[in-house]
């Protein structure tokens, strides 16, 4: 049963330009929903981006929601056991020891702490 014939109806998947691309430049897309937080990127793609403006958006949203629901004690960022500076030292150690998982874990914590404290690129 085929209601729509892909050969007749010209159905395609592809990549489309959103910013000018020069010959030789890498083509990069935003994975997932296109607005993925670093939490989602790590969960689904296994990496922590160097920068992600969606993180501060997500964290601020969660904070406001917790305040609105009078659940400040449940706000996710109240449970860190290390400071940003301690994590940065941990990351150096993990890199020296080639501890891949630890590097990823600490990088994620650093990413969120930096996003929350600086509100960087807050959309």
């Amino acid at each position, binding site marked *: *049963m*085929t*209601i*729509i014939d*892909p*050969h007749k109806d010209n*159905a*395609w*998947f*592809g*990549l*489309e*330009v*959103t*910013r*000018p*691309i020069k*010959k*030789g*430049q*890498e*083509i*990069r*897309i*935003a994975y*997932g*929903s296109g*607005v*993925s*937080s670093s*939490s*989602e*990127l790590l*969960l*689904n*793609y*296994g*990496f*922590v*981006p*160097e*920068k*992600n*403006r*969606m993180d501060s*958006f*997500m964290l601020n*949203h969660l904070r406001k*929601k917790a305040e609105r629901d009078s659940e400040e004690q449940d706000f*996710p960022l109240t*449970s860190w*056991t290390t400071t940003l500076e301690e994590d940065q030292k941990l990351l150096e150690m993990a890199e020296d020891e080639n501890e*891949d*998982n630890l*590097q*990823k*874990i600490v990088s994620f*914590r650093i990413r969120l702490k930096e996003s929350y404290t600086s509100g960087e*690129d807050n*959309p």
Partner: protein
Amino acid sequence: MVWFVSSTTMTGKFILALLAFFPCNNVIALALTTRARSAGGTGFGAASNTEVVVADESAEIIALRNFLLSNRADLTNVQVGRHEGHGRGLFATKSFNKPGKIICRIPSDCALALSDPAEQGKDVPTIAHSGANLIKLYMKDEVKRQQWAAYLDTLPKEPGSFETPDFMDLEEIELLEFPPLVKSAKERKEQIAQVAAETGYSVDEVQYATWLVASRSFPLGVAAKDELVEEGDAVLQNIEVDDRGQILTRAGRSYIRLLLPWIDFANHDSNSPNAVSFISRMFSRHLAVLHFLTLFLSLPENDNH
């Protein structure tokens, strides 16, 4: 063939100028105006300013390209390259000056659906179930395995440095310390174990297939350009964040997962992507879903595969 990818236009121009004097060597120098690794790398350590990207002309890439071209794909303006040390990516072989231009495209019957339409979504309540479907529908089905060999052969054999928390033990997951992620990661591991028990596949098999699906599939509906490109940042006004910290778009609440050969070589950039995946404009989201459900049913009769 080797591409020298430079993070500065000047360096790229310099290399291009050198090539003008040595036109016979087998090197193409390419100027890269954005960060070499941008936000798509692992995020560990500093990205080098100049990176060598080697054109991937392996037998498996050539086989996939030929397979797609024989099925009417348009891949003229892209080349698969291999980053030094961290996998493949897609590179433009011509300049695109205006947004909206199509870089490459594959016909929809070259996409692999990961749910059985007869089940009306009941067969994929979790992403681990989509992973099990990848095993069942393509990897373990002798006919489909052969039909899709050109694509399946290009899939990474292991996650390498892109392991998700699925591959961490519970103690490591706890160290993430962000409750929404800790919760999701634990649930994902439980789902993988549960699906393995239900299907009889090993935990390792389901874990690997789930990783492939999570990291490579495209959720149909989310990538519609109308919401994510044309509206630009205005799309943020329509976003909600659920209790797990997952960002939801209007289109993100319901979708089926698809594997899109060749397109899935594209790497990620959180803050400044230069392309977006699309489905051909003639379909509304509803029709697109309908199309794939019916297409899926018609696959065994399709002579192209």
